[in-house]
């Protein structure tokens, strides 16, 4: 008896591209961004820090950038080559301090992506844990948790971020890890709200009831019965959230450039370029374009993922 034809991975991908062309464009943009961040890896395990050593893995120089982000260039007359137009050696030209725009964009992508992933990891982990517990137990636990979340959400997000970053008592100078954690903290209430909603619906399912009948403890029910069934929603929240976090990081660097960690960053570039924007639009236009593209990519991909994995999820 012939078994029904099972689609291969490639066929699935092709089907996704045909069904969700916009989502495919989103994944293409994300893929390009990931490509920008990968470098020659030098495996060194140590204290997790950002952005060149996510989880302790030294990333080395990104192979797509020809120069270091901080390298300054000079003209034949030994003057700083400021605001040079695009050329064979500097693909997108140079900026105010004579540094290569493309190299700074590439290193900036690394910063955006890793801050985004770290922040989302914090927000998703904590938010999901709180959301599952408050959605599962309901009652006064839920009421109490919801009031705290309401309180956290009454801060405008950017205000909460700037507040956390400015009062940061942990490090004397701005620090990328602190920035990532701050972004994650601000994201917790939104993740919690969505997860709680999904859990409220899931806990009424028969398999959850069955688990209770066979005598599973609350913890066991939450971890083995509810959590696996809300994974799709969590994945969607994660992918959509990445765009939001990358945008927030850029906005933060744009609004309070003096209080965020220095170095190559899209938001900082946008702010630096703004002063001379009308005469030399290069740095401004390129950093703006990359921020917009990245956010757009994550939005498109997240939208398509939601349609495929969890169409009923309301974000």
């Amino acid at each position, binding site marked *: 008896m012939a078994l029904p034809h099972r689609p291969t991975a490639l066929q699935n991908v092709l089907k996704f591209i045909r069904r969700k062309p*916009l989502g495919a464009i989103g994944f293409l943009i994300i893929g390009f961004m990931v490509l920008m961040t990968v470098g020659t890896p030098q495996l060194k395990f140590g204290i997790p820090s950002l952005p060149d050593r996510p989880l302790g893995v030294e990333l080395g120089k990104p192979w797509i950038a020809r120069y270091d982000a901080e390298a300054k260039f000079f003209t034949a007359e030994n003057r700083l080559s400021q605001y040079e137009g695009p050329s064979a050696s500097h693909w997108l030209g140079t900026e105010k301090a004579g540094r290569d725009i493309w190299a700074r964009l590439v290193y900036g992508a690394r910063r955006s992506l890793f801050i985004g992933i770290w922040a989302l990891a914090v927000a998703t982990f904590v938010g999901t844990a709180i959301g599952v517990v408050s959605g599962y137990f309901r009652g006064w636990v839920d009421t109490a948790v919801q*009031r*705290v979340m*309401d*309180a*956290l*959400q*009454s*801060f*405008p*997000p*950017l*205000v909460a971020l*700037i*507040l*956390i970053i*400015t*009062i*940061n*008592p942990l490090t004397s100078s701005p620090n990328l890890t602190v920035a990532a954690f701050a972004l994650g903290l601000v994201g917790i209430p939104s993740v919690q709200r969505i997860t709680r909603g999904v859990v409220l619906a899931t806990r009424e399912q028969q398999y959850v009831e069955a688990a209770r009948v066979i005598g599973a403890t609350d913890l066991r029910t939450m971890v083995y019965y509810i959590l696996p069934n809300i994974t799709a929603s969590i994945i969607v929240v994660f992918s959509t959230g990445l*765009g939001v976090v990358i*945008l927030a990081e*850029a*906005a933060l660097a*744009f*609004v*309070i450039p003096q*209080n965020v960690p220095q170095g190559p960053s899209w938001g900082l570039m*946008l702010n630096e370029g*703004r002063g001379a*924007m*009308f005469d030399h*639009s290069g740095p*401004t*236009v390129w950093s*703006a*374009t990359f*921020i*917009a593209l990245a*956010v*757009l*990519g994550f*939005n*498109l991909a997240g*939208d398509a993922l939601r349609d495929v994995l969890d169409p009923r999820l309301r974000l």
Partner: protein
Amino acid sequence: MQQYILRRTLLNFVVLFLVATMVFLALRVDPSNIIRERAQGCTTAETYDACREIAKAELGLDKPLWRQYGTYMADLAQLDLGKSFFTKNAVLQDIKDRAGPSIELGLLQIMVALVVALPIGIISAIRQDTWLDYLLRFVSIALLGIPVFVLAIFVMLGTTKYAGGTFLPEWLSVHGTWVNLFPGQTPGNDHNVIENLKRVTGPALVGGLGTGAIIMRFLRSQMLEVLRQDYVRTAWAKGLRERVVVVRHALKNALIPVLTVIGLLLGSIVSGNVVLEYLYTIPGIGFFIISSILQFDYPVVQGTVLVVAVTLVFVNLLVDIAYGWLDPRIRYS
């Protein structure tokens, strides 16, 4: 219904109490910055440490934490938000002065958003899955994706470079002198609403596009849901014209949930339009909070954050009440 409103109001006060406590504690985590800043200019004492002590006492930061908290809460109960560390102005008065620009910008931004969102949302829903629908949806996703400050910079750059000499750059870019037109900046200036509205055109247009994209997506999904209802089929079957079916039968019902979203958006826009106010130097609430956080002006930060929270939670409550009133099928318990 009355019971519901009462319960929600009480819960709102719990939330506000939490907000007040959180922002109080957050600011007290590390008060060394403000004390250092204050101590630098002092000439009355010999040693730096003595200067620090004087500054601490002046700011009321020398008392134990629970005493500071007690005074803060007692003042709050009397609606006294304290005085700014720097300008010595009453915080409440400063907030009132800055609410005007924020409200004008917020209202204009929502109006722009509606002008964009309503026709696009309706057309995209009634022509579902045609090329027009795809195009409009792509535009809305793109507008959602493009951060507001990126769009603002492109608009400024584009109008100045390619439309220089026309009225566009003047209306859509940052104005060098316009800050003085708002109250609270230079004392004695009148609050000229019309003039101010002209000044917020640029940020309102830029911000309105993004907000419009949110509303448009929501309106589209609501319209699609309503267009499948039986009463819409009945309206078609009666032989009504398309315009009547769409506007009077479908849109009227689809708009109810959209209105609640608009209410929520308005609340958050008026209170937290940080990036636009910063970029266009509009002396509104968002700009005020940020500058006071950066200056470590504790009373201003506490007061403004609390006023913003009050606005948000009660706008949320009003929106929920309005929802029940507009759609009688909704029952609160």
